[in-house]
């Protein structure tokens, strides 16, 4: 394939960020400690809708956040002006805010975490995005899009590929420097069927699938092979009856487990929520500090890990944005809550153990506790056995709606696609699939966990949190899981 180097900014991604660090060191402020975090990002989105290519949209960002500790306070200054004057000015803003914040410090705040060393991390990339010209990629998207139109009732159909490359340099006053390079890819296949009275959609990827790496990851994310199925299932939904109502067994496929893990395990375990930082925006948590080590979060089949070491998963990294080395840890083991998702600062504030999950969405926002890779570990039950074990229930696939209370307890989720299961056999397609429950009870009804053969590595592209707001990618992996006694329903039944 022809190598694509048609963007002048590609060089910026490959360029060392060291000159910015060198420049900053020459103007760094007098203070107790500082960090410099430089982030360079390049994105491209290619899409085809209804066989018409959408405009090619590219972006590139480059900026720096300077964090200063002085006189007992911490402040930050972030700027896209990376001249010596710009960096000096940002450092001055950080120092001013550090001194001001010391006037009214959060009672339980602790000093800024310090980098413990230097190092390098890079996403493994076999087939680089830049190796394929945009025109070839658009032709591929167009050919795939045509497969989505499975019938006349498909009224809208689209394919898209999104790529983000990012380089992060984190350095400090003690001479440490950590450099990390990431490459992400996220595909979308979507078809909408309508008969003029209602519309049903079917999606693969979209906001619920992202991986680290290059084009070699697309196959595992269903692109382009799932295109025919997407169109056909959209049509099937249009002809399908609504999801039955009742309390029954619920078999969630990995593309819905992503959301279930995210909302009712990930967010409640974020330590900054437990400490109250998020109460004005993303909310608090039903989890309290005394629960760690003893609380039964789920059935004994539930094992949840913080795992930054799966190379292809979205948020694998060597260090978080505080410079804390990342390692795989169990958050829930055999159903018992072990530790929260909290970075070094939150750990110091709370006295609880945590994880290396202090993350910022970009150079212009400060790190806070986030999910990274948060996974339900596979069990031992083959998918066929999961189904065989269900006398009557509903299978649900692909999230389409999510809502949960601000302590992450009462939830209601909706899925694009469902099937009734009777006597161990998968039956008819059903539409408008919803279920609701309470996090504190739901996971205790986990009745079976799929094995490694149906374990899928997916993710979320739009996890929002923080003040000021930050949207980040999150990795989630899970097998299909069976829950008993769940309230499932369709609003149109």
């Amino acid at each position, binding site marked *: 394939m022809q190598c694509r180097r048609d963007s002048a900014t590609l060089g910026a991604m490959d360029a060392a960020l060291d000159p910015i660090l060198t420049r900053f060191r020459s103007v760094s402020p007098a203070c107790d400690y500082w960090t410099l975090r430089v982030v360079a990002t390049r994105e491209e989105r290619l899409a085809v809708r209804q066989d018409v290519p959408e405009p090619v949209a590219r*972006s*590139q960002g480059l900026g720096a956040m300077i964090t200063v500790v002085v006189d007992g306070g911490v402040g930050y200054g972030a700027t896209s002006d990376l*001249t010596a004057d710009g960096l000096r000015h940002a450092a001055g803003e950080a120092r001013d805010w550090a001194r001001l914040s010391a006037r*009214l410090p959060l009672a339980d705040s602790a000093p800024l975490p310090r980098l413990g060393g230097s190092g390098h991390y890079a996403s493994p990339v076999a087939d680089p995005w830049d190796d394929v010209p945009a025109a070839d990629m658009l032709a591929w998207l167009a050919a795939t899009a045509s497969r989505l139109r499975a019938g006349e009732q498909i009224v*809208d159909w689209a394919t898209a590929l999104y790529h983000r490359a990012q380089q992060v340099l984190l350095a400090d006053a003690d001479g440490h420097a950590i450099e990390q390079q990431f490459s992400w890819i996220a595909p979308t296949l979507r078809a909408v069927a309508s008969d003029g009275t209602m519309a049903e959609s079917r999606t693969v990827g979209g906001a619920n699938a992202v991986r680290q790496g290059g084009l070699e990851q697309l196959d595992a994310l269903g692109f382009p092979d799932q295109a025919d199925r997407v169109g056909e299932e959209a049509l099937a939904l249009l002809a399908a009856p609504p999801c039955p109502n009742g309390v029954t067994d619920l078999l969630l496929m990995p593309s819905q487990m992503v959301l279930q893990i995210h909302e009712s395990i990930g967010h409640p375990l974020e330590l900054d929520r437990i400490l109250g930082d998020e109460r004005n925006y993303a909310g608090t948590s039903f989890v309290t500090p005394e629960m760690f080590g003893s609380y039964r979060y789920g059935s004994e089949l539930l094992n949840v890990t913080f795992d930054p070491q799966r190379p292809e998963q979205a948020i694998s990294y060597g260090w978080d944005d505080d410079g804390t080395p990342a390692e795989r840890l169990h958050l829930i083991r055999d159903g018992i809550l072990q530790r929260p998702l909290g970075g070094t600062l939150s750990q110091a504030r709370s006295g609880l153990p945590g994880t290396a999950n202090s993350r910022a969405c970009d150079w212009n926002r400060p790190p806070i506790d986030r999910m990274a890779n948060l996974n339900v570990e596979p069990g031992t039950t083959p998918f066929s056995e999961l189904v065989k074990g269900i006398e009557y229930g509903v299978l649900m696939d692909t999230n389409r709606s999510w*809502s*949960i209370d601000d302590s992450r307890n009462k939830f209601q989720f909706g899925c694009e696609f469902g099937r009734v299961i009777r006597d161990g056999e998968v039956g008819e397609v059903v539409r408008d699939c919803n279920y609701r429950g309470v996090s504190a009870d739901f996971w205790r009804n986990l009745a079976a966990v799929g094995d490694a053969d149906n374990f899928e590595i997916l993710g979320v592209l739009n996890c*929002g949190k923080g003040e000021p707001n930050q949207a980040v990618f999150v990795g989630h992996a899970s097998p299909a899981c069976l829950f008993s006694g769940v309230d499932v329903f369709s609003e149109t039944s």
Partner: protein
Amino acid sequence: MNARTRFDALADALLAETPTDEVLMLGYYAEASDFVRLNHARVRQAGHVSQRELRLELVTGARHASTDLQLQGDLEADLAMARGELAALRTLLPELPEDPYLDYAETVNDSESVIIGTLGDRVNWLDSVADCAGDLDLVGLLASGTQAHGFANSLGQRNWHAADSFNFDWSLHGADNRAVKGRYAGSDWQPAELAARIAVARARLDALARPPVTPVTGNHRAYLAPSALGEIMGLLGWGGFSLKALRTGQSPLQRLADGKLTLSSNVSLEEARQGSPAPGFSGVGYLLPPSVTLVDGGRFGDALTGPRSGREYGMPVNARMEMPEALAMAPGELPEADVLATLGDGLYLSDLWYCNYSDRNSCRITGMSRYACFVVAGGELVAPLAPMRFDASVYDLLGGGLEGVTREREWLVDASSYGQRSTSAQRLPGILVDGFPLTL
């Protein structure tokens, strides 16, 4: 060099170099904002963000592509970067197919608006918080600074919108994290106004100290304060009024737009940009109309039409994106002071939270109660409402179930700040509803 001077210098240089067989559009955004994050009325994180972005959209014939750049600060270096990106776009365009839906403003319409505010200073902000809420558990974010939006094209058009503004979005928390929401946004920071708002919230916090009540699931009479209604309207904005969504059958308001259903005749919605903090021009140079009627007396009005959909479906452009940025609902006749007495027995919902569609075809929305919600009996707030889930169709809430609309409206400035501070706002009344379904 200030933001305007910088933008003009970039535009002058780049547009002068544009060949006559090309159209170049430049979009500019600059922001210099302070962010003070508070927990327990103390500083959790504080800092300053200064950012500048330039969008380059290059058109040759019916081919086009765009690049967004973060500007680095040195004018010559920024120009060199922009020229490099334009060269890359010129290499790319011949490889791309023609775009049948390419649309941009071809008539020159200049505009300029500048709002100069009084934003206070950092010491005053912290002193105000300490003085008014030092003994309270206040959580929130104060964002304050200047935002500027610019547009220029090689046809000769220039647009500029700059505004100083602050947005202090906060909540006071009491027993078991039961909380009162507060907001203070504008361009003229007045510590006395903040103090007054915190005093009102403090008084409401006392009412939340009583044990919460969990009502039975099922239908209830309810009053939705403007902020609660704002959550529902915010969700409706995602696809509800979009021309593209409507023409492909995906709008949750499809049945309204198709004339199969109506809302109450007391419901009139408008995209009312007059006085809105958002710029009045689009990213491809269209000046946006000051008003678009979305719902008129319960019947669907005009869809919001962006440039691409406008070209595809042959409709005039009236929106930047196909979602409201300045949604206003017409007031009704119910005095706010009479709300509790008119409600009698039911629910007082100050805020809703995390709304999403449970059935788009029926415009059914599920969500949670949040903040200072109360059970009302005999026209009095008798107990805080435990967090409750609802699931209701907008066709019921704003249709047959709508009993009243308040005479007063609230100006709700969006506090969101993903990437950059939002310039969206809503002007909404409260509504009285019979048949608000609690489900969990």
